[in-house]
């Protein structure tokens, strides 16, 4: 029974954590490049230098004392996002989408005070959400106004598109849709929905919620499949460029679609999760192996995305 299950998964080419780490992350992602993606501030600066769209940076808090200067900066913005520079898994992200004098409103309608905001920033700076607990920086940045295309199929929060890029070739992607359960966050393990995307057309397929496959959004009841992602070609190009940007062979690129500014890179991930396979109802391994065989013949990003659209279309 267990062996049978393993055989079926192997036949489908499902990539699991041991193999991802041993044969892809450890092999293609040199350790020295990690800071580029682990520190979101560095990622942001790197992207800006190369003319890639990212959410605007409002402020960085590196030591507790700096919060004193925050009111001056925040007075200019009624919407912003606080996130740890070294966060992982979407932890420690606080979204503010409105304010009343000295109080801030979160997307779920809860009101927080300046003290609570400061406490959150202190937690971030002292390393509560960073890997290994070392001191961190809090980034305060532009809050994305997402493209209305996703409005019917997301609950609060910002849906984002995750694209796995292997050696510059986008191999698999999904759109992550916040739910009531995920508290407006777009991370699958926090309860967000992941819908697979047809690499050739940019249309959504079925979705995964937890570890099950579903076809409707649990909060809105709308069908999550068949939604066409706007600017799909741009998204693929953006994702492919991240390979040249960081040099990481195997990475996950998180992109948001802003209503006004178009696709923006939210963050890069050197160890992207594996549930994307469930969302796409497909294994990553055959695609990765195909890229491994042919990547030397693909010289620029246009060839790479053509390769992706040709070989990784939904069945």
């Amino acid at each position, binding site marked *: 029974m*267990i062996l049978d*299950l*393993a055989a*079926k*998964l*192997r*036949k*489908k080419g*499902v990539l*699991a*954590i*041991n*193999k991802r*780490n*041993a*044969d892809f992350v450890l092999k293609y992602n040199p350790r020295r490049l990690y800071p580029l993606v682990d520190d979101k501030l560095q990622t942001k600066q790197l992207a800006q230098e190369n003319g890639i769209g990212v959410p605007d940076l409002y402020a960085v808090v590196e030591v*507790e004392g700096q919060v004193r200067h925050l009111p001056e900066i925040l007075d200019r913005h009624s919407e912003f996002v606080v996130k740890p520079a070294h966060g992982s898994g979407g*932890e420690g992200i606080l979204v503010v989408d409105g304010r009343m004098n000295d109080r801030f409103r979160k997307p779920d309608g809860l009101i927080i005070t300046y*003290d*609570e905001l400061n*406490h959150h920033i*202190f*937690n971030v700076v*002292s*390393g*509560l959400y960073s890997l290994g*607990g070392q001191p961190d920086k809090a980034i305060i940045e532009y809050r994305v106004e997402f493209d209305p295309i996703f409005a019917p199929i997301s609950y609060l929060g910002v849906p984002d598109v995750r694209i796995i890029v292997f050696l510059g070739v986008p191999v698999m992607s999904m759109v992550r849709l916040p739910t009531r359960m995920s508290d407006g966050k777009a991370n699958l*393990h*926090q309860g967000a929905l992941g819908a697979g995307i047809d690499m050739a057309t940019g249309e959504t397929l079925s979705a*995964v919620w937890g*570890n*099950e*496959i579903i076809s409707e959004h649990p909060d809105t009841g709308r069908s999550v499949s068949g939604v066409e992602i706007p600017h799909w070609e741009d998204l693929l190009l953006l994702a492919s460029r991240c390979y040249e940007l960081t040099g990481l062979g195997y990475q996950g690129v998180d992109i948001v679609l802003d209503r006004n500014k178009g696709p923006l890179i939210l963050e890069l991930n050197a160890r992207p999760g*594996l549930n994307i*396979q*469930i969302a796409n*109802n*497909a*294994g990553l391994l055959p695609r990765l192996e195909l890229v491994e065989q042919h990547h030397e013949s693909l010289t620029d990003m246009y060839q790479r995305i053509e390769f992706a659209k040709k070989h990784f279309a939904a069945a």
Partner: protein
Amino acid sequence: MNKLHLYILVAVLAVIGLGLFFYKAFVLSFPLAPRSTVQVWNVEARVSFVAEGNPVKVSLFIPGSTRRYAIVDEHFISSGYGLAATTGEANRRVTWSIRKAAGKQNLYYQAVVRPVRTAAPKGEIEPPESEIPKFKGPGEEAVKALVEDIKAKSADTPTTVAELIKRLNNPSPDDNVRILLGPKATLSRKVDQAARILRYAGIPARVVQGLRLQPEKYDFSKKTPLLSWLEVYHNKQWLSFDPLRGRSPVPNDWLRWWQGSQSLVQLEGGSKLNVVLSISPKVEEGITAAVQRGEISKPLLLKFSLFSLPVNTQAVYRVMLLVPVGAFILVILRNIVGIKTFGTFMPVLIALSFRETGLLSGIVLFSLLTAIGLSIRFYLERLKLLVVPRLAAVLIVVVGLMAIFSIVTNSLGIHRGLSVALFPMVIMTMTIERMSILWEERGSGEALIAGAGSLLTAALAFLVMNIKHVEHMIFVFPELLLVILAAILLLGRYSGYRLLDLHRFKALAKGPT
């Protein structure tokens, strides 16, 4: 290339490890299974007195090796004193001396007594010269009458001695015996007099003093009473007699300390002399005893083995060498099964403390401690503290909880509770902190799953580490560590599915392939 390199390394490690193992096991015949343990004893004599600023000389009889017991690892603890050990005709004796000393003085003699089996000495023992003791006044008549009476009722020396002992121990003694023993008929007085009476009767006899090595009766802090018995020369051997029952020889657990009726310690230049003898039993693995007895040859290999270390350091390594075994279990559970735990090696450390607490009470104590710590941590969360002060606060709470646990369980008479102190407190603190963060970020479900995973891993690691054979094998054959290392290196390249991956991706197996 990369993989080949790894395989060669693994093969080399495994060959070295297994090769040494087989050589030691089958050529040098190191025991493969833990042998029965050997009971050894720590004995200690503490001599305390008050010195008066004058030269001090203290001499103490010390035990010598006999046919039944070997005296090893002797230590003399005496700051500032000169030390001279002499082996006289009958006794070993140590003399401490100092030119000037004042105030309370403590001198110690410590040794390890190990049971041995030595063959009976061949040849004959020369009969001792003994002078006929003199008895005063009515004693002279009494001893004459008693000896005649006893000799009439016995056939040879042993029966004579037995008869004498019976007479001396009679609850209603006859007049002769009463005269000889005097008003204070203590056991040592009886033994003393018995030796004199026997010598008077022409039978060489002497008094021997010693201790009884009784398991579980004494601990080191208690004073062990002295014991005296008789030795009688017969058939060119010395025979020992139990002065109470008249049996010969005396039981095996009687340790001979010195002979003669002199007292254990002689002191010059001090007062308030007090001597405390104490013993404590200690269980030692058969192999250590075998090594010390020289049963295993090839001294070179032993010289560089763990057995060359002092016994208490050996005990530390006994535990330390189990950590790699626990780590191996951990690797299997995490990388093959896919169980989530808090912290990488936290379960191994918890498993180590389970060795002291026992499995069941360990799990209960751990869960209680974590649960209470967690609720206090949630309360602290409301105070909005910075991370490091908050961690320190949780640490203090954990230490306090441990103390309270120990006090409460101790007063309830549950001694298991005392061992809660053995939980690594920093690890506990980090576990509570991580668990509470996981709890808030991803819900109670995931936090409890990871907590249960940690406990399960710790329990499994403990169960394996606690197998006597495992402990024995890894300690006697530490080269097996190389084999474990090789296995872990191999597992480091295992890229197949974890058991729990199968559950996670189950949905993918249903669709068409």
